[in-house]
C-alpha cells in the first residue's frame, strides 16, 4: 500500500516589539520572573488593554511580504480556556477578521524544484506565561513575563507532502520574518514555535485522513523527527486495522518519542466572541503603502541578487542569502576582501564547520565578518597560504586578536621570495636523488603523482611557510630542466 502524507503548519512568531501587545511592559528576554508583568498582564480588575501600534505594523509587513491582502478592519476576539499561565481566563486573539488574509510562500526543495505553499491567514494574538513544573512543594510556578508578548500565528493550508517540504517552508518563514526584522528568529528562546498538523491517506485519495497536531516544536531538526515518527505511527495504526483519533501530541526530543496530550473529543470548546474591551482596528491605505515602500529586501530577491551581483551558484546563493544574518555577514566580509567567491567558500566551509561544531549560529560567530574579510585579503596578497589561513582563523576564533595580529604572533607569514624557494627546491632535489632518477625515467602519466612527494618535502623543509603555488612552479621548472 502506498501512502501520501499531508502536512499543514501553524507557526507562532514572537514579534520583536519593545513592549507587549496590550500593555507597556517590556518584552526583553531573560528578566527575573514576573518583573515584566504589569497589572494589565496580570488581569487585575479594572485594567483595560491598549493595542501596540508596532505589533500591527510588523504583522502588516509580514502580510505584504507574502503577497496577502491586509485586513483593513481587524477585530480581536476572546478564546476562552482556563490555565494558570493565562491570567484573564481567555486569550485575546483574532478569528473572523484577522490582520493578514490569504497569501503564499514559495519554497525550494533539495532537487532544485519549487513549490508554492498557500497561507490561509495570519492573525495577531498574545502569548501566554510560562508554567514551571519542577517541584515547588507539589505546586507549579508561574512566570508571567511572557504573558502578553505579541505573536502572529501563521496558518498554512495543508499543502506540504513530506517532512522536507515542511522544514523548507518553516525555514523560509524564518528567513522572511528575520529579513523583515519583525522577529529575532531565536528558536531556542522560543521566538518561533511550530505546530504540525499531520494526516495520511492512500495515494490517489481525495479525502483527507484524520489529522493529529504535534505541538510546540522549536527546532527544524525536531520538526523533521516528529513528522517522521508521526507518519510512521499513523500508517502502522491504519495498516493494523485501527483508526486515527484527532488529538494533540507532544514530541519529546530527548527520548525521540511522542505522547497524546489530549483528545479533541473531550476538548476545548473555546467559545470565541468579539472582545468588548477592544474596538475594531482600522488600517488605512496610507499606512499600508508607507510600509510597502519601506519593506527591506526579501529572501527571494536577495537570492537572485547574490547570483547576479556576485556570480554565486544557485545553491550558494540560497545558503548565504536565505538567512538575513548570514547574508549580512557575507556581504560585509565581501566588502572588506573584494572577493565574493572566496568569502562564500570560507563562510560555508571552515567557518560553518566551526560554528556547527560549537552549536553556534553565524550571529554569535567569534570571528566577525570584517575579520574574515581581512584574513582573506592576506590570502589574496600571498601573505599566507590557505593552510595558514585555517590557523589564523583558529587564532581569531579563540580571541588572539585580528588576523594581522595572529599572523604576526604565530609567525605565519609565507615565504614568497622566489630566491629562497629556489634554494629550498634545489636542496630537496639534491637530498633525494633516487626519487629524481625515478621521476626522470617515469612516463608522463605517472609524473604528476610523483611531484606530490617533492612538494611535501619542500613544504616540510620550509616549515609550511613556502607559498605552495610558487613551490609548484619552481619545482616543475627545475624538474623539466633535469629531464
Amino acid at each position, binding site marked *: 500500500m502506498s501512502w501520501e502524507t499531508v502536512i499543514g503548519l501553524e507557526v507562532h512568531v514572537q514579534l520583536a*516589539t*519593545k*513592549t507587549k501587545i496590550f*500593555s*507597556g*511592559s*517590556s518584552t526583553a528576554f531573560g528578566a*527575573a*520572573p*514576573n*518583573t*515584566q*508583568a*504589569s*497589572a494589565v498582564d*496580570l488581569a*487585575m480588575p479594572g485594567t483595560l488593554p*491598549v*493595542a*501596540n*501600534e*508596532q*505589533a*500591527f505594523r510588523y504583522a502588516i509587513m509580514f502580510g505584504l511580504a507574502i503577497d496577502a491582502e491586509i485586513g483593513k*478592519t481587524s*477585530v480581536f476576539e476572546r478564546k*476562552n480556556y*482556563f*490555565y*494558570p499561565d493565562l491570567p484573564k481566563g481567555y486569550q485575546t486573539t483574532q478569528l473572523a*477578521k484577522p490582520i493578514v488574509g490569504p497569501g503564499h510562500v514559495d519554497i525550494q526543495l533539495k532537487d532544485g524544484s519549487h513549490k508554492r505553499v498557500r497561507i490561509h491567514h495570519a492573525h495577531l494574538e498574545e502569548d501566554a506565561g510560562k*508554567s*514551571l*513544573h519542577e517541584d*515547588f*512543594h*507539589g*505546586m*507549579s*510556578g*508561574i*512566570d*508571567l513575563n511572557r504573558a502578553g508578548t505579541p505573536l502572529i500565528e501563521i496558518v498554512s493550508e495543508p499543502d506540504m507532502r513530506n517532512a522536507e517540504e515542511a522544514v523548507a517552508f518553516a525555514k523560509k518563514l524564518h528567513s522572511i520574518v528575520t529579513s523583515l526584522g519583525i522577529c529575532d528568529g531565536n528558536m531556542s528562546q522560543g521566538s518561533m514555535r511550530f505546530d504540525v498538523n499531520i494526516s495520511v491517506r492512500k495515494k490517489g485519495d481525495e479525502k483527507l485522513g484524520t489529522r493529529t497536531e504535534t505541538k510546540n516544536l522549536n527546532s527544524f531538526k525536531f520538526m523533521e523527527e516528529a513528522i517522521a515518527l508521526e507518519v510512521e505511527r499513523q500508517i502502522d495504526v491504519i495498516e493494523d486495522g485501527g483508526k486515527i483519533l484527532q488529538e494533540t501530541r507532544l514530541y519529546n526530543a530527548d527520548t525521540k518519542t511522542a505522547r497524546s*496530550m*489530549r483528545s479533541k473529543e473531550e476538548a476545548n*470548546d473555546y*467559545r470565541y466572541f*468579539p472582545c*468588548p474591551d*477592544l*474596538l*475594531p*482596528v*482600522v488600517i488605512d491605505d496610507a499606512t499600508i503603502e508607507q510600509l510597502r515602500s519601506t519593506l527591506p529586501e526579501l529572501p527571494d530577491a536577495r537570492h537572485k541578487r547574490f547570483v547576479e551581483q556576485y556570480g554565486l551558484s544557485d545553491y550558494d546563493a540560497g545558503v548565504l542569502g536565505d538567512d538575513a544574518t548570514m547574508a549580512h555577514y557575507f556581504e560585509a566580509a565581501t566588502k572588506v576582501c573584494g572577493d565574493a567567491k572566496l568569502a562564500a567558500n570560507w563562510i560555508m566551509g571552515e567557518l560553518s564547520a566551526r560554528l556547527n561544531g560549537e552549536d553556534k549560529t553565524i550571529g554569535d560567530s567569534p570571528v566577525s565578518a570584517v575579520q574574515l574579510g581581512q584574513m582573506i585579503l592576506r590570502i589574496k596578497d600571498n601573505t599566507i597560504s590557505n593552510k595558514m589561513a585555517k590557523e589564523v582563523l583558529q587564532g581569531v576564533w579563540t580571541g588572539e586578536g585580528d588576523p594581522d595580529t595572529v599572523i604576526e604572533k604565530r609567525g605565519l607569514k609565507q615565504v614568497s621570495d622566489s630566491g629562497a624557494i629556489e634554494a629550498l627546491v634545489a636542496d630537496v632535489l639534491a637530498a633525494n636523488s633516487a626519487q629524481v632518477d625515478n621521476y626522470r625515467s617515469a612516463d608522463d602519466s605517472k609524473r604528476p603523482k610523483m611531484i606530490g612527494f617533492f612538494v611535501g618535502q619542500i613544504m616540510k623543509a620550509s616549515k609550511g611557510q613556502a607559498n605552495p603555488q610558487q613551490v609548484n612552479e619552481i619545482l616543475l621548472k627545475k624538474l623539466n630542466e633535469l629531464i
Partner: protein
Amino acid sequence: MTIERADIEKLAELARIRITEENIAATTRSLGNVLQLVDQLQAADTTGIAPMAHPLDAVQRLRPDVVSESDQREAFQAIAPATENGLYLVPKVIE
C-alpha cells in the same frame, strides 16, 4: 432554540462553575428564557447588514511601542496566596 439539561452541565463545566443539582432546572429555565429573546431578535431581517464587532461606532486608538510600565512585582505578590523565587505558586497543573 431550546436548551437542555446536558447543555447546562457542559457550560458549567467549561466555565468552571458548580451548579448544584437542585439549581439545574431553574438555571435551564432562565437561560432558556434568554435564548427565546435571542430567537425574537433573530427574526429580524439582517440581509446586507455586516455583523457588528462592537456596540460603539468608533475605532481602536493604538499606542506607541514605548515601555511605560516599571517593575511592581513586590506590590502584586504581596496579595498573592503563594510565591517563591519571584514565581506565583498554583496547584500543580500538568496536562
